[in-house]
């Protein structure tokens, strides 16, 4: 028979062999802030610069370079001032400078719900979840978002609404960098629809649908 020490050693070895598995199981069940070790590098990290990566060559370390001042990207030559700025000469445009379609309306609804509803609320009364939370904080720096259903905002020309999105207004910041031009017009269209919907009379409902009203 094998000596006792050898038997013990073998049992100990068998017991220890479970330890790595236990450690791995523990790491699988928890999160780690360490990036994983790449066993085989292949070409996983290439010296090319990808979107939103850093490049120490530049003072601001951005690999993506901002546009050089005075240059115009393809398709962004702001030819039609009514479309691009909501202004015609010195005046706000009052009619939509883009074709008004059902698709534009649906697009507007979707974009409104993404970008405006957090503050202005789904129906535009200024009661979105962010506005409510900010009100509850009572910090004194917060101005409640305007309701769209006031005579002032109802009376704003579409060009002015467009400009409000592009550059912000008073305490509201600009959304021009987040929302492309077509989408801004779509949102203006939807804001107009919201305003109509909260300020409608029976006369606005097509006759064949009036019976459904309660």
């Amino acid at each position: 028979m094998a000596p006792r020490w050898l038997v013990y050693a073998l049992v100990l070895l068998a017991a220890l062999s479970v330890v790595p598995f236990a450690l791995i199981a523990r790491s699988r069940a928890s999160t780690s802030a360490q990036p994983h070790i790449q066993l085989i590098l292949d070409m996983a990290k290439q010296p090319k610069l990808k979107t939103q990566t850093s490049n120490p060559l530049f003072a601001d370390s951005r690999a993506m370079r901002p546009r050089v001042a005075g240059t115009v990207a393809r398709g962004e030559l702001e030819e039609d001032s009514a479309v691009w700025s909501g202004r015609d000469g010195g005046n706000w445009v009052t009619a939509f400078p883009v074709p008004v379609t059902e698709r534009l309306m649906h697009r507007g609804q979707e974009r409104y719900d993404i970008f405006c509803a957090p503050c202005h609320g789904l129906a535009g009364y200024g009661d979105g979840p962010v506005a409510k939370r900010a009100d509850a904080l009572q910090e004194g720096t917060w101005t409640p978002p305007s309701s769209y259903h006031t005579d002032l905002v109802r009376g704003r020309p579409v060009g002015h609404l467009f400009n409000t999105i592009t550059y912000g207004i008073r305490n509201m910041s600009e959304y021009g960098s987040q929302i492309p031009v077509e989408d801004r017009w779509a949102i203006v269209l939807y804001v107009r629809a919201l305003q109509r919907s909260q300020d409608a009379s029976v006369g606005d409902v097509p006759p064949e649908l009036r019976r459904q009203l309660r």
Partner: protein
Amino acid sequence: MSAEAGGRLFFPRWANLARPALAVALVVVPAYLVLLLAYGASPRTINVGYQPHQPVPYSHALHAGQLGIDCRYCHTTVEKAAFAAVPPTQTCMNCHSKIRAASAKLLPIRESYATGLPVPWVKVHDLPDFVYFDHSAHVRRGVGCVECHGRVDKMEVVAQVHRLSMGWCLDCHRQPDRHLRPPELVTKMEWVPPEDPLVYGRRLREATKINPSTDCWTCHR
């Protein structure tokens, strides 16, 4: 025990076991190592659960969960481009110039806003550079964020929950049905199909002719 007799070294009797023991060891040890490697180096172990520390204690659970801000408010390029942009500082300042404008937690944001230097967010999901991935191709065809990123709206700090290995990509590309939804609902994290996901997904796939490719050049180009 090993005894010395007449100056000769005798092996003890149990030493006869060495040969079969060696044979067993030659089978057991490699098998053990293979198992250990398969378990320890699997993408499930290595990739999942990576949760780097971020420079700002920004919480998706608060912003996307409680406040219900749509993913696309911040990740604006996700439907248009391959890359889902992490928002610029301006986006945070839309609100935080007025809300918690003096919070210490937001100091790096205000600094970045003042200096124009980017906030050094740490990338969580990171495919090898030899893989091509495209968000817009998925999001526009109705693969929800939750399918690949998990319940981000419940995370205080973003962690990786899926393997992002080639096998994982292919599992879905071969059989996408249960992962599909109408494209306008991609950011709704808690959405569940109104019927059996397989049946619902198959109908969607057939109606919109979704056919994810499994050719090598789709992802390696």
